[in-house]
């Protein structure tokens, strides 16, 4: 008497992969809303964990064993080392609250929904099909990148901008998992070390900025004259 869904649902593997990619995007939105710097760093660690889990899921479901190595390495670097470094820097800076954005949280979320939707559908019409992951994961990763841009644009403090940049790298990692999961491990590891360079650069930036202006806010940079 009752009809179950007539639409064919994606397979269990696709569903799980999509859900994990979605968690990456939701944590990106969480960073946009987070008011405390420490909470932002924690959310970044969570997001990196989700990316590592996605790599492990692909490794398990599609039998790409070298992705296990990538998952472990990104777990070590992005979930443990980078957040610890940033939290150490925060402890020196003695600041807790992120610089308020130029917009209210609700507007930020609505704008990000719009921008994310653009990313979703722009990638959707490209018709890129991947062997290992569903296309929705690619769209989600592009949405992550775009929302990370919004985070960097609307927030007025160095830490949020750094976190935005690092999480952008997470989005790119997801995209690379979709497009080229079998990419040689050495390339992916090069990505990770790029991130380490970025961490060093941002660390220096944070310290120098804090020493000069006694705050992490970038607001007074507007008034600089040559």
């Amino acid at each position, binding site marked *: 008497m009752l009809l179950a869904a*007539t639409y064919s649902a994606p397979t269990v593997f696709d569903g799980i992969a*999509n859900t994990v990619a979605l968690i990456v995007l939701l944590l990106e939105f969480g960073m946009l809303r987070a008011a405390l710097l420490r909470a932002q760093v924690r959310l970044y660690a969570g997001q990196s964990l989700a990316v590592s889990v996605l790599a492990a899921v692909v490794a398990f479901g599609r039998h790409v064993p070298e992705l296990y190595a990538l998952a472990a390495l990104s777990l070590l670097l992005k979930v443990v080392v980078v957040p610890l470094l940033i939290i150490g820097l925060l402890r020196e800076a003695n600041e807790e609250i992120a610089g308020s954005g130029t917009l209210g949280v609700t507007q930020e979320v609505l704008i990000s929904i719009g921008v994310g939707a653009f990313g979703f559908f722009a990638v959707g019409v490209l018709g890129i099909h991947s062997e290992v992951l569903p296309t929705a994961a690619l769209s*989600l990763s592009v949405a992550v990148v775009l929302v990370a841009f919004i985070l960097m644009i609307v927030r007025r403090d160095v830490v949020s901008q750094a976190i935005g940049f690092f999480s952008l790298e997470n989005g790119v990692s997801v995209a690379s998992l979709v497009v080229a999961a079998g990419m040689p491990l050495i390339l992916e590891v090069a990505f990770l070390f790029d991130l380490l360079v970025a961490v060093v650069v941002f660390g220096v930036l944070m310290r120098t900025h804090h020493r000069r202006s006694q705050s992490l806010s970038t607001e007074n940079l507007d008034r600089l004259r040559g």
Partner: protein
Amino acid sequence: MSGVPLPVIQGLQVVTVAGGAPGVSGFIAWLEARLQGRRGPRVLQPYLDLAKLFGKETLVPQGAGPLFRVAPVASLACYLTVPMLIPVLTSYALPLGYMGDILGGGLILAFASFLVAAAAAETGDAYAQLASSRAKTFAAITEPVMLLVVFTVAMITTTDLPYVLGATVRSGPAQIVRPAHLLASAALFMVMLFETGRIPVETHTGTTEFGMIESGRSFEYSGPDLALLQWGSAAKQLVLYVILLNVFVAPWGMASTTSLLAVALAIPAILGKALLLGCAIAVLDNTYAKLRLFKITEFVSAALLLAVLAVFTLYLGGG
């Protein structure tokens, strides 16, 4: 084994919701108190409260029109109409189950809440009017979330009958892990927290009028009318729990035949599931602080985000 007639099962659905609702509220209040280290009221306390209130007289404020007396009865009637439309005890649709879809059920719930708010506006009590105007303001911004959840359901099942979504979820794990379903369930859960007046939106048993949304509307009521309103809000809570559990999250443990045993077992099953959900609600109540009034829009915007993403993932074909 001879089957139970379908109209009787249909009536049993209403009786289950009407009879079980105060108990579920009482259980949540008791568990919340236990988690805070208090002894708490006994689980059956809401029933005793109702009995006490039904034995008292009703007072009507001066100048209040007939709507003031009609609203409690009519709203309870609305809340008890919805259990005929949704799967409470059976996994197959009952004769009146096709009378309305999810939108129809939502319409009836919204109508009941409108009646209570309009009646509160008649009293001239500042706090009751404040509460009802707040309830309507925030209801207007949660409504898009509900609509998007319904869209998601409609796109998953190509219909919007709650029975079909339940059957779809039961059909296999592929339907459960798909992001659209998880997101729609989460968004519905957040709307449900708002609709039942739980933390982080409002304190359920608070006594400060300034924070009240749902619970402030019954200030001018007394006696049997107040009892009907309290019973109605408990019934609304259980109806929303049943929709979340039997349609979205856990559509198992329902009767699939008309046999007496299956139907009889379905009653404790749904009440048990509602109590489990109540445990989660009590833990949430004790974990979070109440949001400031102007932060509620942020809460709703988070729910909107989940619902919008559910529709997006479906459109991309991956959801």
